[in-house]
């Protein structure tokens, strides 16, 4: 279905004020936004407008009950300057899975992708061309009904905003295996990209940083034994030549980079097993010398190479180098910039003249 998405443009773009070689992290936003309103049981009036403040009732339910979900994705350009999106259909599907769990309405998948395309077409001059840089896109939905009471809202907003992001410094990271605080429990909202999941992780993350670590390694809620995720990323381990990653159990996010990395690793000839993994097993592998490398995967960072894991009094040494992780990262970036053939058909090109 072709949607009619009217576009109202800014009079003058702010893009000239941006130094593409020195982009402040997650603080610069482009000129426009995509916005759509949900009322009376349907999504109305999808449009691209100049980025503006949103009048929000103080009793808007998102402010009180956290009924909000989001997605994260990136637009890149190929060597000819054609803008591209990475697997946007997957984000559209996942947004709706999050919506289900959080008692929110589905957003039509084709409108999600079309809205993204329209916005990126309008903002294409904002896509940083450097390898590893991208235009970060943030689709999100929140409850804006003014109501005090415990039930799902009946009016929502869906918005996409965009922020140019520079290449992430690929420093090797140290993890803190968390045995007190938890990210998500079975039967909870861990599988959804629900706003409240992230708020709950802020303090434990700050505490881990104060101890000298970069990120929290989340363990399961019941036993603090099984590895879930790292920070806001999924995690992979290479042991004895084979890759393992925690099996999704309802408390682990279905990462799009995770699923893509599984495909890439298999394509490169590695065996990848999805199964429950205990922190003890990783500790033993490290001691035996069979733990070869480990990395986190996520949209924002891509691949984050893991150096060591603090677990109680123990320091689990992972590795000093991550050759496979680096190789996978290069392949991913290559596909995203059109330098490597996209044999998986992941990239969705955007017509430059669309707008």
């Amino acid at each position, binding site marked *: 279905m072709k949607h009619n998405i009217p576009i109202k443009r800014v009079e003058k773009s702010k893009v000239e004020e941006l130094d593409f070689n020195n982009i402040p992290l997650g603080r610069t936003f482009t000129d426009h936004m995509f916005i759509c309103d949900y009322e009376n049981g349907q999504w109305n009036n999808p449009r691209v407008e100049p980025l503006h403040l949103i009048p929000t009732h103080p009793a808007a339910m998102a402010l*009180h009950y956290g*009924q909000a979900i989001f997605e994260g994705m990136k637009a890149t350009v190929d060597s000819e300057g054609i803008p591209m999106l990475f697997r946007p259909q997957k984000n559209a599907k996942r947004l709706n899975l999050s919506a289900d769990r959080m*008692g929110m309405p589905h957003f039509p998948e084709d409108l999600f992708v079309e809205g993204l395309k329209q916005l990126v077409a309008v903002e294409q001059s904002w896509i940083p061309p450097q390898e590893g840089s991208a235009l970060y896109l943030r689709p999100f939905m929140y409850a804006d009904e003014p109501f005090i009471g415990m039930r*799902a809202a009946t009016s929502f907003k869906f918005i996409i905003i965009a922020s140019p992001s520079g290449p992430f410094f690929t420093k090797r990271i140290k993890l803190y295996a968390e045995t007190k605080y938890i990210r998500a*429990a079975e*039967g909870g909202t861990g599988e959804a990209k629900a706003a409240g999941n992230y708020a709950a992780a802020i303090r434990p993350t*700050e505490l881990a940083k104060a101890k000298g670590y970069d990120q929290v390694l989340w363990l399961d809620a019941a036993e603090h034994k099984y590895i879930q995720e790292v920070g806001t990323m999924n995690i992979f381990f290479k042991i004895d030549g084979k890759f393992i990653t925690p099996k999704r159990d309802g408390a682990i996010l279905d990462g799009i980079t995770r699923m893509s990395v599984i495909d890439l690793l298999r394509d490169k000839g590695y065996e990848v097993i999805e199964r429950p993994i205990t922190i003890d097993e990783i500790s033993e592998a490290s001691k035996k010398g069979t733990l070869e490398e480990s990395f986190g995967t996520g949209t924002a960072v891509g691949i984050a190479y893991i150096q060591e894991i603090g677990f109680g009094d123990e320091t689990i040494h992972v590795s000093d180098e991550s050759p496979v992780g680096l190789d996978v990262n290069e392949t991913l970036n290559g596909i995203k910039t059109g330098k490597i053939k996209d044999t998986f058909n992941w990239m969705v090109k955007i017509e430059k003249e669309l707008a």
Partner: protein
Amino acid sequence: MSDQLNYNMEVIKVEKSRINDVDFNNLSFGKIFSDHMLICTYKNGAWNAPKIVPYQSLTLDPSTKIFHYGQAIFEGLKAYKDSNNDVFLFRPDENCKRLNISAKRMAIPELPEAYFMDGLKALLQVDKDWIPTQDGSSLYVRPFIFASGRGFHASPSDEYTFIIATAPSGPYFSGKVTVLIEEHYSRSANGGVGYAKAAGNYAGQFYPTQLAVEKGYNQVIWTDDNTHEYIEEAGAMNIFIRINDTLITSPTSDRILDGVTRKSIIDIAKSEGIPVDVRKITVSEVIEAANNGTLKEIFGAGTAAVVSPISGFGFKNKDYILPELENPYANKLKKRITDIQTNKAEDAFGWRVKV
């Protein structure tokens, strides 16, 4: 309306009150808001002095962190007016303390106690006429703090906003309340944020509650995430269970909110000579008591719902009906607490605070 404030605070009043548009004899819960609100912002590492302004829309940038990461906490309390036109609050210091307990867990800077207490009292003086005097009605007071800083990082915000909004409200529940004991979804886990009044705790309950409502129940009673064997709390209420003559309620924990109504009911019940047992209670114990006729009452206790008798519950596709007693504890306790709150009875506990 009195223009004399006991509290030295900037007050900007509405030009014309909306109060004549309100039908105080037919109030629903949490839908109409009084003329003014208290607002206070945290910037550059400090809370600024609160002020009272006309109730109005906030204008929020789409990148405001609350929409993305749900970093928000709230409180709920009620203001009452007696026949002398005197205004009373019920244990507001408890709400103030709990707000800061929630703040700590959610990495939100603690709010100075005076800003909360004096701000609340000043606001109630300005909007005194909005406090209903009808039986079962009160002015619901909603203090809340949300992350109002901008950015795409799930890290502590650099700006926060504290608001107190008030809503003249009728009873929260109308009619009989039936509940479903949850066996699959979970509200919270040890190491999580269940004890905090964190926004995300509430949105996570909407969908499971919706499923319960579709099956014909009003509410969910949550069980522990790990085994689903222990009774925890209902979404907006703590739960009391009467077996024979003893009143049983779960101890507060990482997962269970330390309800102000809960602890007040425990004290009142003890003063009435009712045996109170604060201990873990299993679902199977409740079922067994239902089957052998020793289960006399179940009721919820919370600020919004006060004391809400439960007429029946469902568990594993079976419904259990509570007996209809002549003089249930619930009625007696509800009358005692309401009389204290509305200045109709002696306040032996020293809970009532005159504004």
